[in-house]
């Protein structure tokens, strides 16, 4: 009999606990809630102390302000469990008869992350906590509650508890974002701390009201007026009055800044965490002196990056063309070869300058741009495809290039191929742009944020680096003797090179198909068909064997076929709406999620490490990395094992959020691989731009 009573009693007790009943206290309802409905060994999860206040009553933030007490949670967890600190949503400034408190009204969730031990039997665990607070209206009442909840332990991935999803999401929205990319400077005078706030490059948001909520208490006049003013576009000051009876002078200004306009655009997070040492004088109002060391380093990196560019997959076809060029030159005299080398260098330089100029002009126009941006435009891809296709046809012998393009013709013939050397320099550059060699990313990232002359210098350095091996070969042609002697094989090689170009066109067609779909492909191939016809006509009747009149007519007819078909096709393609980038996230292996800064924060808050793959369909390096490293079974298993979320930022089409995210890391090109630790206090790690399964696995293992 006694035995049964005990069982029934525990049953009743148990059913109460598993629903985690809220505890009613004076003016506050308190409850412990969990974001997940079950937990798994080793997988951190989020819980919250939910406080629901009676109307007019409030409890306090981590800094209570002039009076009050911050809410405390004392955890009583099962063996091996660990609870993190409270993550505080930003508070409201509550002013009562001239005294200001930082607190919460209505409902608030104070979040905390709990990490279970690595080994747990499938059972149920009980999480207990004692919450203590001070609840005030005008009068104050200290309150406390012993809270508990039980959660089942299961072996599968924890499922979200739908009951609380929205509340957790709302609470997270109110957690401060980090101030990456923002610059702060604080100076102290007798009664005021002046905070200079500088907006990051990527933001063009205007701010007209910003309030500082300090983490440290007893230093500032909480109810005091903080003057916010705009010095110039993107540079602001906030004056925070100091309490005469302060505990100490602030050494480090720590806290959150609240802007009713979101920090990352309208409707985004309103709270941003920052900390900055307080100095005596401010220098931010002056233009910071440019850092020479940084510039020299960037120039060196750009130069080395330029050399390495030659080895990148997308330059390979052009590389072969250039090698062919040198084979042809090998027999000629020295000065001519040097001239060729010079012309090639000039071609590379010229196109880099054009690109840099374009970048500067567009940047000035406020465009969100990045390296490889040309390939985000279907128009560019189509034109490049036509160019390469005609080049290939010429290599196949359908028509002769040197004697054709009449506008360039005279120069090309007269300069004994200097013109074509120049053009191949241009071609090499155009093709190289989507491939970012390891060094180039950072050099360009540096360049894009610099004044125009620095940007130009970096692009110049990059160009010289890229042309360097060829310049070297043309100055020391004796080194060319290692290349085979000219002969009939050259014609065969030349024709074979054509296939490499065709392969490149296949890649471009694939990029286009991702951007604009299958219809665009048909249009592209139609244009190529017309281009082929035009090339054939020109080759058949426009060659040197025909009379001048025939040649002219052939040229006119082929242009009359080529140009209208290209224009017509481009028009059609541009009418096709561009696909959203999610459509291109097609790799099967990892469970990719579409990138947004919010999802990264959300996943991290859920206790997951996050791997972000900044990629694009037109980035061959990225695709190679995905194939050889990311989509391998061992890597996929590792992701699963360590509970790392995979997020793909697909930059195939222009996407401002991704451009901004890249800019945050000082980059404007892909690939970029960022590994965020679930623990937000750990700085994100970058993986190299060329991945192997080993590199990825090692990085993942180093997370814990």
């Amino acid at each position, binding site marked *: 009999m006694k035995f049964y009573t005990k069982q029934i009693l525990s049953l009743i007790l148990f059913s109460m606990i598993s629903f985690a009943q809220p505890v009613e206290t004076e003016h506050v309802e308190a409850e412990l809630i969990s974001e997940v409905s079950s937990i798994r060994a080793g997988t951190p999860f989020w819980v919250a102390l939910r406080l629901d206040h009676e109307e007019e009553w409030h409890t306090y933030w981590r800094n209570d302000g*002039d*009076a*009050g*007490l911050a809410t405390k949670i004392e955890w009583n967890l099962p063996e091996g469990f660990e609870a993190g600190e409270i993550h505080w949503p930003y508070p409201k400034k509550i*002013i*009562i*008869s*001239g*005294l*200001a*408190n930082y607190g919460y009204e209505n409902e608030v969730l104070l979040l905390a992350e709990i990490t279970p031990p690595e080994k747990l039997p499938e059972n149920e665990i009980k999480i207990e906590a004692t919450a*203590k607070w*001070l609840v*005030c209206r*005008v*009068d*104050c*009442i*200290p309150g406390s509650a012993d809270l508990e909840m039980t959660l089942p332990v299961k072996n599968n991935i924890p499922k979200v508890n739908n009951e609380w999803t929205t509340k957790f999401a709302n609470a997270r929205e109110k957690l401060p974002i980090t101030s990456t990319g923002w610059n702060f400077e604080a100076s102290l005078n007798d009664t005021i701390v002046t905070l200079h706030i500088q907006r990051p490059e990527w933001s063009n948001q205007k701010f007209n009201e910003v309030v500082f909520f300090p983490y440290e*208490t*007893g230093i500032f*006049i909480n*109810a*005091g*007026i903080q003057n916010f003013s705009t010095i110039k576009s993107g540079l602001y000051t906030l004056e925070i009055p100091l*309490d*005469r*009876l*302060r*505990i*100490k002078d602030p050494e480090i200004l720590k806290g959150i800044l609240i802007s009713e306009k979101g920090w990352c655009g309208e409707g985004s997070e309103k709270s941003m965490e920052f900390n900055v040492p307080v100095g005596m004088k401010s220098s931010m109002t002056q233009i910071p002196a440019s850092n020479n060391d940084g510039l020299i380093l960037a120039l060196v990196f750009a130069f080395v990056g330029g050399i390495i560019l030659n080895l990148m997959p997308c330059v390979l076809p052009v590389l072969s063309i250039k090698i062919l060029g040198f084979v042809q030159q090998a027999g000629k005299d020295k000065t001519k070869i040097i001239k060729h080398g010079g012309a090639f260098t000039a071609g590379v330089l010229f196109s880099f300058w054009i690109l840099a100029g374009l970048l500067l002009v567009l940047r000035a126009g406020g465009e969100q741009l990045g390296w490889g941006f040309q390939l985000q435009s279907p128009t560019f891809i189509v034109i490049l495809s036509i160019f390469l296709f005609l080049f290939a046809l010429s290599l196949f012998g359908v028509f002769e290039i040197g004697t054709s393009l009449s506008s360039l013709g005279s120069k090309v013939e007269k300069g004994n191929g200097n013109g074509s050397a120049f053009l191949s320099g241009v071609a090499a550059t155009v093709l190289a742009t989507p491939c970012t060699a390891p060094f180039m990313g950072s050099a360009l990232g540096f360049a894009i944020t610099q004044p125009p002359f620095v940007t130009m210098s970096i692009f110049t350095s990059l160009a010289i680096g890229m042309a360097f091996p060829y310049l070297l070969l043309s100055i020391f042609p004796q080194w060319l003797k290692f290349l085979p002697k000219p002969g009939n094989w050259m014609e065969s090689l030349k024709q074979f090179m054509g296939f490499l170009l065709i392969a490149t066109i296949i890649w471009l067609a694939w990029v286009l198909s991702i951007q604009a779909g299958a219809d665009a492909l048909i249009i592209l191939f139609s244009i190529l068909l017309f281009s082929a016809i035009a090339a054939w006509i020109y080759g058949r009747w426009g060659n040197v064997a025909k009379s001048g009149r025939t040649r002219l007519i052939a040229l006119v007819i082929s242009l009359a076929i080529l140009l209208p078909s290209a224009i017509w096709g481009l028009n059609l393609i541009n009418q096709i709406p561009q696909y959203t980038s999610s459509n291109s996230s097609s790799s099967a292996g990892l469970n990719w999620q579409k990138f947004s800064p919010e999802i990264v924060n959300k996943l991290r808050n859920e206790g997951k490490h996050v791997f972000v793959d900044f990629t694009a369909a037109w980035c061959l390096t990225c695709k190679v990395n995905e194939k050889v490293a990311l989509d391998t079974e061992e890597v996929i298993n590792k992701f699963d094992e360590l509970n790392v979320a995979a997020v793909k930022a697909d930059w195939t089409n222009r996407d401002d959020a991704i451009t901004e995210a890249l800019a945050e890391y000082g980059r404007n090109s892909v690939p970029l691989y960022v590994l965020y630790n679930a623990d937000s206090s750990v700085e994100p790690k970058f993986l190299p731009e060329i991945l192997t399964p080993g590199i990825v696995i090692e990085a993942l293992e180093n997370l814990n």
Partner: protein
Amino acid sequence: MLNIKNMSAVILLLAFSAVLFAQKAEIDKTAPGFTLKDSNGKEHSLSDFKGKYVVLEWINFECPFVKKHYNSKNMQNLQKEYTGKDVVWLAVCSSAPGKQGNFDNAEINERLKDHDANLTAYLIDESGDVGRAYGAKTTPHMYVINPEGTLLYAGGIDSIPSADIDDIEDATNYVSAALDAAMGGKEIATKVSKPYGCSVKY
């Protein structure tokens, strides 16, 4: 319409509070002078106590933090100890009429008797002027003034901000530390601390 009204109210309030907090009290400077009536109708001026250490204790008997230190006898014991050493101990109540902690003289005296308080005087500052001059934010909020009239200490009564009586034992009492150091001719370690408690009901 309502919004504009609300907004101007907020702006007014902010402007007002800025004026309010043009406080004068500063550490190591002369403490602001005042003249206030006590709960027996007798007037006291700070200048009357030149030559003696003076403790100011902001008070509101209804506040749980004041209760913490009175129900535990912590405050009374301090008062007893230091008034015994010729220190002047003044409680100041800045609760506005109708607000919490504002009582008539009879009620005050009864409560003082119930609590067995050892005050020199319980001063009534209904206008809140003295409280604002001292920047008093909470009850309790403690101030120590030396015989020359210089403010030596401002802040909380001790180092553990809570409403729990149990915490008193573990806390460092800043008021006695300041008084002991000053009387012994030593440097005061903590001259300012964050006061904790209920807000002063101006």
